[in-house]
């Protein structure tokens, strides 16, 4: 059930430095711990930050991402609510209206759906409908996607719903350092952020010195992640554009392709909204071929959007259509069958074969 994400050969800037420092100190940390530390550091840095949701207090969340926060910061800074997602989001809206920075947790992806009206009609629109007078700085954390053998309703990739909704920012980290940095950025953002955490990465480990990263972030020296895609691996023959849980899959595909002499560039887009057209387009213009890899069902998805944008912007650089490797357009399958649905390195390589190399 635990996946160790790839250590990236050419991570950029802060991430790279942080990774290097940590490697020196030899402290592997999990993705979950990075999130937990980001929350603790945010609670320390800013007294208007409050954390709440189902089971986030005493228990520390079903994934333990809020572990220890109630004990350390008290029941007023991190607390359990009654079991009602619309209630949680709606209350967060009010708290943000009144000077707080709520960071709330939806227990699983599909259990954010009861809050859809609050998110869509209020979280996304309050700033706009008050002409900027009521900004809503808040973060909605959503563990998402599969790869952990979850039962029905526990493995949805729901990022398209929120990415399609104007007024919401959508972040999804794929490395331990990004987990820390992006969550800090999300909490400090003046805009509401839907923060998607790939469940299968919670237990993945990397050599990252979180203390150094924190110091860097607080000194405003960490490189911005919002709207800045990450070249997870440099390459020249084709680009894999991906995010969140699929980054590790793309990295694996790139490794396998390299063995066959094909050099793949992997772009981790990090934030779906705002989108880094520049980095993505530059990569595709360079390689001339692209595959978008994402776990969500493909129809009318974020992957569709990326394909559409890339061909709009890079049409004359393209040697082949931009293809997609995504989940099928079916309800997310049960544990015994999920592997057939999830994008795999093999499926990416099969798709690569279709990029008209002979043409």
């Amino acid at each position, binding site marked *: 059930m635990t996946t160790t994400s790839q250590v990236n050969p050419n991570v950029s800037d802060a991430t790279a430095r942080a990774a290097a420092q940590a490697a020196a100190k030899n402290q592997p940390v999990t993705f979950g711990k990075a999130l937990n530390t980001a929350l603790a550091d945010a609670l320390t840095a800013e007294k208007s930050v*409050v954390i709440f949701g189902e089971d986030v207090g005493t228990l520390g969340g079903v994934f333990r991402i809020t572990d220890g926060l109630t004990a350390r910061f008290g*029941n*007023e800074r991190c*607390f359990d*609510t*009654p079991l*009602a997602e*619309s*209630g949680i*989001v*709606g*209350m*967060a*809206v*009010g*708290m*943000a*209206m*009144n*000077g*707080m920075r*709520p960071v709330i947790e939806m227990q699983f992806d599909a259990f954010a759906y*009861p809050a859809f*009206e*609050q998110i869509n*009609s*209020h979280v996304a629109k*309050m*700033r*706009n*409908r*008050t*002409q*900027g*007078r*009521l*900004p809503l700085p808040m973060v909605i954390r959503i563990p998402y996607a599969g790869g952990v053998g979850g039962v029905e309703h526990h493995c949805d990739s729901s990022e398209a719903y929120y990415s399609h909704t*104007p*007024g919401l*920012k959508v972040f999804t980290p794929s490395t331990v350092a990004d987990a820390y940095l992006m969550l800090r950025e999300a909490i400090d*953002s*003046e*805009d509401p952020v839907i923060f998607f955490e790939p469940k299968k990465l919670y237990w993945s480990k990397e050599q990252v010195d979180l203390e150094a990263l924190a110091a860097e972030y607080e000194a405003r020296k960490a490189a911005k992640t919002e*709207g800045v895609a990450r070249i997870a691996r440099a390459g020249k023959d084709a680009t894999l554009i991906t995010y969140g849980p699929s980054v590790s899959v793309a990295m694996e595909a790139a490794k396998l392709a390299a063995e066959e002499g094909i050099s793949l560039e992997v772009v981790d887009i990090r934030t779906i*909204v*705002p*989108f*880094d*057209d*520049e980095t993505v387009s530059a990569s595709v213009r360079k390689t001339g071929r692209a595959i978008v890899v994402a776990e969500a069902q493909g129809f009318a998805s974020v992957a569709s959007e990326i394909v559409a944008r890339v061909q709009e912007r890079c049409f004359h650089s393209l040697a082949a259509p931009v293809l997609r490797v995504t989940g099928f357009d079916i309800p997310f399958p049960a544990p015994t069958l999920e592997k057939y649905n999830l994008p795999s390195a093999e499926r990416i390589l099969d798709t690569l074969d279709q990029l008209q190399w002979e043409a």
Partner: protein
Amino acid sequence: MSTDATADRISEVSQKFGISPEDYMLPARHMINLLDPDGTLRPQDQQGTEPGHEYPLPSPARLMEAYSALVTGRRVNDQNSALVRQGRMAVYPSSHGQEACQVAAALCLEDGDWLFPTYRDTVAVLTKGVAPMEVMTSFRGEWHCGYDPKAYNCAPMATPLTTQLLHAVGVAHAAKLRGENTVVVAMCGDGATSEGDFHEALNFAAVFNLPVIFFVQNNKYAISVPFSQQSAAPSLAHKAVGYGMAGERVDGNDLMALMSVMTRAVRLAREGNGPLLIEAHTYRMQAHTNADDDKRYREDAEVIEWKAKDPVTRMQAYLDDAGLLTEEAAAKITEAAEAVAKDLRDGMNQDANTDPRELFEHVFSTKTPQLAEQQALLVDELDREEA
């Protein structure tokens, strides 16, 4: 933050009233009603009070203040409806007949307190102090709520039903965490009580023991759907006990009763006794909005019956009889109301602010590259048009 604490709190307050916790939470057996439809004060034993549910008469000064707001409210409702008929405003959900509720909802609050209104609560928002033209901004077809919610402690009027009750809970919770003594009045209609968010808001408020007054204007209709098809409960106020809070029903066309009930509710809430649910029985005298045709679903006779219970004439009669409404006072009140109506007429003659470039300005704190690109596209179109 726990039921144990809540149980203690409830039994404490009920002890204060010398009644059982259940009797404190359940509404009085009869609706609270101080004035007869014709304006005469009811005998004490017919006011609906019973132990723990006694409501003193507000002071004459307070009544005069409320009456003035009531007259202005009525004038605003009718002025706005006229502006709609004249095609100078897009839509207006009038609260004609419900003005007493609206006035009480706002007047019971103190300065730092918050109000959460719906689309029908223009008069409450006005009474809270928002400038008339600011209140009307969204109804003229502009894209924003028109006023600064933080300047007035008044949320934007909410359209998605009962969603705002949760925001009210959040505002109260934030204040409580900071140790501020803020009371919040959160308004909704009878139909809206059927939505899930109503339930979640009341429960959160009770569990976190927050000073929120949930104020339901039961005007008997949700667009065309009569209350009898909305709920089978003995009253909406009876819902309170299911959350562990106190409930009360009050004659929503009786400004005196409303002022008394709401003032006590605010005091109880401010003293830390938790949220309350107040159901005001009133009637939507006009169609749902100007786009609605109420002839399709109700009889004139019903409307006429309610006309006899009008909150304005009732209060006026009482104040007249009590000798409070001198000719001078009455003139001043009318004058104030007319001034607001004139403001509205004048304001509506001005063009709305409609710079399309602003469409992209307040989606995020700073424009994303995508929005900048889209704005550029529109600006280019506009430039070419102008050229």
